[in-house]
């Protein structure tokens, strides 16, 4: 078993490209932590730095209290599962799983015992004499896990191990991973870009963007108390809606103006003090929006698209008043790898609303959008940080 601590860990590539920026993070013994973020956010690089496959430019990595900065990968007592599984093609399943034990000079009996045990846990017993090319994607993934668990390491590092699988198998193996961790209790760091994987597997989730750790917390906290607009927008599907607003009334509760509509909210205690005239971003999740027929007290809007799903459907709406500005998380990470061609233009932006499938408004109709003021989250309009 092992705890993993990162202190001020950074990685700068030649040409001053910052891949990982000053990350502080602790993974407790036996914990299942997920690193999540979009492509190129540095999560895999950080995992590889923990494994010793990448050098670190600054900071300190400790495993079980021992500084690992200059320790070779094979002496770190960690096992890694790669996205491609990296099974040795010339070896059978049995040889693949036993290989690390042979290198470590375990006795033949001990190797057999451990390999058989791993095969039993992962339901691989029938496949032990096959070569990797004779296995399906799911079976290969299980062999890769077998190769990791047989060593009984201090920690498992899983680098997008499910992303090469089809959707159905991914769900099945995701559950298997969870069960395996519950059974073995080995410290695990799982890297993924899939927020569902992150939210379902991790006891804590570290969200990365552009090499920087944005928030490290429980899935519940990430969803309900995101640290900034990036986290709020990244966690949750469809993403949280963001609207520009200005403070028009102060006091214990704030009155916000969203175009002609007024919204009264109670700011989070201990947050930044806001006064009349300040601009804020109002974050509201699709399930905290509802609709009424046009003419109600809510924000006048028009239904543009309807996605019929069961038991809930999604509608995409545009505010009728064009002075209501919709923002996206991307607006706050300018300079990141956002393709301008893919950026949604301001006038084309829509709000996502989650409604019961039984009461979906007809498309192209005018409605009144009701915002659950008690559930909105406020963000600084300049920095995107939660208020």
């Amino acid at each position, binding site marked *: 078993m092992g705890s993993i601590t990162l202190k001020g860990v950074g990685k700068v590539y030649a040409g001053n490209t910052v891949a990982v920026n000053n990350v502080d993070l602790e993974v407790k013994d036996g914990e299942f932590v997920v690193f999540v973020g979009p492509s190129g956010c540095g999560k895999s690089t950080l995992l590889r730095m923990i*494994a010793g*496959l990448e050098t670190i430019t600054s900071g300190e990595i400790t495993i079980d209290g021992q500084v690992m900065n200059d320790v*070779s*990968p*094979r002496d770190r007592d*960690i*096992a*890694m599962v*790669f*996205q*491609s599984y*990296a099974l*040795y*093609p*010339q070896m059978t399943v049995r040889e693949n799983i036993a*290989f*690390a034990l042979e*290198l*470590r000079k375990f006795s033949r009996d001990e190797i057999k015992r451990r390999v058989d045990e791993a095969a039993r846990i992962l339901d691989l017993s029938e496949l032990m004499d096959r070569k990797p*090319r004779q296995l399906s994607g799911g079976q290969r993934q299980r062999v890769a896990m077998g*190769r990791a668990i047989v060593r009984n390491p201090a920690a498992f590092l899983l680098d997008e191990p499910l992303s090469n699988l089809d959707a159905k198998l991914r769900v099945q193996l995701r559950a298997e991973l969870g069960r395996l961790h519950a059974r073995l209790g080995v410290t695990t760091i799982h890297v993924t870009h899939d927020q569902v994987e992150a939210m379902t597997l991790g006891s804590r989730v570290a969200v990365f963007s552009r090499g920087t750790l944005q928030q490290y917390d429980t899935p519940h906290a990430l969803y309900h108390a995101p640290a900034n607009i990036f986290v709020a927008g990244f966690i949750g599907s469809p993403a949280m809606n963001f609207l520009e607003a200005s403070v028009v009334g102060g006091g214990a509760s704030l009155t916000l103006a969203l175009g002609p509509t007024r919204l009264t909210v109670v700011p989070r205690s201990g947050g930044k003090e806001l006064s009349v005239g300040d601009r804020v971003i109002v974050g509201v999740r699709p399930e905290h929006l509802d609709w009424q027929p046009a003419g109600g007290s809510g924000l006048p809007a028009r239904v543009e698209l309807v996605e019929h799903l069961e038991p809930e459907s999604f509608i995409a709406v545009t505010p009728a008043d064009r002075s209501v500005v919709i923002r996206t998380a991307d607006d706050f990470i300018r300079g990141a790898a956002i393709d301008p061609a893919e950026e949604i233009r301001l006038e084309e932006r829509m709000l996502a609303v989650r409604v019961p499938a039984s009461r979906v408004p007809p498309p192209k109709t005018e409605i009144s959008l009701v915002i659950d003021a008690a559930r909105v989250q406020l963000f600084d309009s300049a920095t995107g940080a939660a208020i």
Partner: protein
Amino acid sequence: MSELALPAAPRKFRPALTIGSLLLSIVVLTPVLWIFSLSLKTSRETLRPGLLPTDPQPGNYVEAWNRYGLGQLFLNSAMVTVGSVIVTVMVSMSAAYAFTKIPFKGSEALFSLLLLGVVIPPSALVVPLLIEMRYLGLYDNRAGLALVYVAFGLPISTLVFRGFFATIPGELVEAARLDGCTELQILWRIIAPMAKGAIATVVILMFLANWNEFILALVLLRNAGGFTLTLGINAQLGQYTSDYHLIAAASMIAALPVFLVYLVLQRQFERGVAEGALKS
């Protein structure tokens, strides 16, 4: 590795390709058949026109073997060739592994320098090489000759291995490192078994080149006891008369190992060439 095959030629080009291949085969095989025919002729018949021997003499092979001491020549050639091929494969595999899987400063520059060896013909370096080998005490020494073959073989073999290793996923190497392999263990236990095609390619290329090599052997070996086959057979050419039928028989015997090596490694070699051809 999946089975690889060269893409089939478009149907309309096939007749032309078949005729072309046939013509090429005739051009290549004619001298071989001519030497084979010569090797079965009598001494008097050698200078007469006509491809087929009127009275085939298989005994020429036994006579050539005994009279020219082919046994010793074979042994010398085998020692020099097998030794040099083994060392070339081991060293060039290690070099190619370092060039592809171990990032280090100056890797590209060093590889470019090594590639210079491919473009410099060995015969251009004969004189300085002779001086160097004398200085090192390796003149007229079979091990010295083998070492020279290794040096001249390294650039092209490293190039072949580098091309192949570049296609082996880095994650495989990293997995082996995490499993506890040293770099040498990764090379011999993980990479080498995957590189059979590339190894066969290099073995055949090097075996062919070193077994048949003449100029360097001529310059660097003096004592007839250490002569390789090419030198030994060449020594039988007299100023006024030569037993061409026996020399032809000896040449046929000398060519046999190359033929056998190719036959044994043919499948791996063809796969290696196909992989290289598709990856370039």
